[in-house]
């Protein structure tokens, strides 16, 4: 293939800078004292500390899951620091004056200005820096319509009944190894409550940044959409370029009560490691939502970063006529590995789910789709449609598809299709012959391949996602 692709694909990770800010960082290691420290630092009530300690006990009993198509390195969980926060900051800053200017500058550099006069129009942002939330914009405006959007560490104090009722209700502590770990040590994350009948007036978003070296990030997000409410939420993630591997193990729980609608979009751009596969984030994430009657949960993800991605945003379609959607673009390059997909558990009558997954593998990377569609006995009239396509760029990468389909009810319909294709020399030549250079041609073809997913993203982010794709296909074809 033409040489120019190399140049084009040689673009660098753009969020790889570090912020020099003094931090309070726990020394590496995990034991009950660490958990007590995190809990005390956040002034947590006893029930939450107990909950964390229970999770820790469960975690110690659990084994690292090895079933994914991943070559997992030995991760020494005692070499990770489980808490880090910028020093010049109270744990819950009341205004931006209390936030280290260096931290604010970091977000500005990433295109997420937090200062009031520069707020992104129509988007409220919760910015999480290492283990703490540094700012949440538009809080007051949202509060006027009853929408609660704040760091979960604050919600624990301000809305304890809501947190207590729903925390762990979708992803229990014992769910899996990483969910147990997160439950024990989670530091911050966003809490959202949309009251009955309210359509959230703006996009909500969280922006996660790992800055400190040797630090893991363990955020916890809880979104509750009360009856007939609507919300669209977006998260973005970046980290500096470092030679070491850093751990990210998040849990996201969504609760869509009757007739509610939650749209959750992720643009995951954690540092993927360098061309030789050194460094990068290990991304082990448990995301799950429960949809009650006539409710809808829609996951859209664009996964371009991380050295390892292990992630299956799922829907429990509990209610009648509930709807689950999963739209995914996962790009791997160089030595990245991804094993990602979804689970659609159909419990409600006439529940419906749609899965569109686009995997793009380049370099020496491995990219797997793994999905489960389960039609339980009660799910009469349920439907699923899945389309999983893989695009290979180069002949040293792998693209894999592992769909698990189970049906226990005769009136349910499941359809799954998967194809694989490559960017062909013919296609590139046609584009070139019409005067389009190779850079543009690859970008068009790959974007075309992902179109069905990109159009599910909020408008502002669709173009961003396209650009991210170009950057992440670095050096993939020789």
């Amino acid at each position: 293939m033409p040489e120019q692709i190399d140049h084009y694909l040689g673009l660098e990770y753009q969020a790889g800078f570090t912020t020099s800010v003094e931090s309070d960082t726990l020394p590496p290691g995990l034991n009950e004292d660490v958990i007590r420290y995190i809990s005390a630092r956040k002034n947590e009530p006893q029930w939450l500390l107990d909950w964390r300690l229970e999770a820790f006990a469960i975690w110690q009993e659990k084994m690292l899951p090895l079933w994914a198509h991943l070559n997992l390195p030995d991760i020494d969980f005692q070499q990770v620091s489980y808490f880090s926060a910028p020093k010049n900051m109270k744990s819950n800053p009341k205004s931006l004056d209390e936030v280290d200017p260096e931290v604010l500058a970091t977000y500005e550099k990433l295109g997420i200005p937090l200062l009031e006069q520069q707020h992104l129009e129509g988007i409220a942002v919760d910015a999480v820096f290492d283990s703490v939330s540094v700012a949440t914009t538009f809080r007051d405006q949202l509060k006027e319509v009853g929408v609660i959007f704040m760091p979960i560490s604050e919600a624990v104090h301000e809305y304890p009944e809501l947190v207590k009722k729903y925390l762990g209700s979708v992803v229990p502590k014992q769910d899996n190894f990483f969910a147990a770990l997160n439950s024990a040590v989670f530091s911050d994350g966003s809490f959202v409550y949309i009251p009955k009948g309210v359509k959230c007036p703006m996009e909500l978003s969280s922006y996660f940044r790992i800055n400190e070296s040797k630090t893991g990030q363990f955020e916890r997000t809880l979104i509750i959409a009360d009856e007939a409410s609507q919300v669209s939420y977006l998260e973005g993630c970046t980290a500096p370029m470092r030679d070491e591997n850093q751990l990210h193990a998040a849990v996201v729980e969504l609760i869509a009560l009757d007739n509610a609608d939650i749209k959750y979009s992720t643009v995951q751009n954690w540092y993927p490691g360098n061309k030789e596969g050194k460094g990068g984030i290990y991304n082990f994430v448990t995301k799950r939502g429960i949809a009650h009657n006539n409710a809808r949960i829609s996951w859209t993800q664009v996964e371009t970063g991380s050295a390892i991605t292990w992630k299956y945003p799922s829907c429990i379609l509990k209610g009648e006529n509930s709807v689950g959607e999963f739209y995914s673009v996962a790009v791997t390059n160089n030595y990245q590995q991804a094993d990602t997909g979804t689970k659609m558990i159909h419990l409600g009558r006439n529940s419906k789910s749609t899965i569109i997954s686009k995997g793009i593998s380049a370099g020496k990377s491995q990219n797997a789709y793994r999905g489960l569609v389960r039609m339980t006995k009660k799910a009469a009239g349920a439907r699923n449609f899945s389309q999983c396509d893989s695009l290979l760029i180069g002949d040293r990468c792998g693209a894999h598809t592992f769909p698990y389909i189970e049906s226990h009810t005769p009136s349910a319909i499941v359809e799954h299709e998967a194809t694989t294709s490559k960017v062909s020399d013919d296609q590139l030549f046609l584009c070139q012959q019409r005067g389009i250079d190779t850079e543009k041609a690859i970008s068009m073809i790959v974007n075309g391949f992902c179109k069905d997913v990109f159009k599910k993203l909020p408008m502002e982010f669709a173009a961003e996602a396209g650009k991210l794709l170009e950057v992440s296909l670095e050096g993939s074809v020789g």
Partner: protein
Amino acid sequence: MGTTTTLTAPVAKTYDWLSALREQGLEKLATLSWPGPKTEHWLHTPISKALAELPELSAELNSETVAALGQIGGLDAIRLVFVDGRFQSDLSTGRSGYAGQLSILSQLETSAQEQLEHRLNTTFERALNKDQHIGAWQNLSLLSDGLVIRVAADSQIDKPIHVVLVATPNSRSEQQATRIICDLERGAKACLIEHQVVLPGGQGSFSNQLTEIELEEGAVLDHYRLGLEGQSAVSLSAAHCALGAHARYQGFTLALGGRCQRHDLVVHHLHGGSHCELKGLYLPCDTEHVDVHSCIEHRLPNCTSNEVFRGIMAGKSTAVFNGRIHIHQDAQKTLAELSNRNLLLSPDAEVYTKPELEIYADDVRCAHGATVAQIDELALYYMQSRGISRIDAELMLSFGFINELVEKIELEPLAQFLKPVLQSLFTRAAAAQENPS
């Protein structure tokens, strides 16, 4: 009824090398554990439990009964009968004239023994080093008799080889296994029918059957496996094929279900230009369980594979289908397709299907599709509007769903034999639907 002669297998000659192989099988078996509920390749198929629960029974066999088993009308074939893994000379017909091509493992000449020993030693390890193929290791550990088919270059066996495999309740204590070796040299052709049958009365039985196939350049094998071992049978069966350049393997698998029926199909494309065609049906009803695992390994360029499996689950039955296509890095220009479609006829039936693609080469065209659905309402309505009862319409449509594959069976007498077998199955399933007990 004639006189009752109890059938006892002629005592198989024991060869030292065979004992050594059995020993090897036993040793390997000891290192593997029978799969539990979390073993990936055995999810949903509780084989250990099924084996443990096999009833201790015994049966007196009568040679006339066995002679009547597995007859396919109009089929001009070489008929070879095995009872509980032992060859039955008296009940087998049409073997004369094929002595050079067909031999019985327990009756081998010394030179042939050496050849076979070599064959078993060199090929067996391929891809079998996993829990998935524990049945194949068990087969080795029990190996005492079987069939060796060897067709020389550019020649063929002009009649289908009809192997009738009878598993009796006695098999429970004997735990006998059958092995079929089928080697076709360059340009050779053959047609093999493995026909697992059930004794009248259908008491529980156990069988382990393994067929190993090597096709050299340009060789063509038509291979039918009819898994009719009956409702109470626990059976493990497998076919392992290695394909040479431009070789062609055409397989048809029918798994009617049993107490626990597992069939493993493994195809290795070892040289360029080979083609495999895998078609199959699984049709469990009542409380039957059937599990078909297929794995196609594309190792070199320009090979093609086409796999079509359909299943209908009635009653409280369970079906498991796993269709894996593995494209290795050097297998450029591969074309591989898999289609798996399932119909659930009853609210108590269930199906688990997992088509898998694992791809390490970019210039390939691979696709798989899997569906689980019910019978098309519109088609039902259309038939009902022409005066056909709903039950009959369902029956016709379900039968049509699998008949598409039966129609494509080139061996006409076999297709004719299968149709009424399948038809009666559907009538039974439909009756159960109508009068749930």
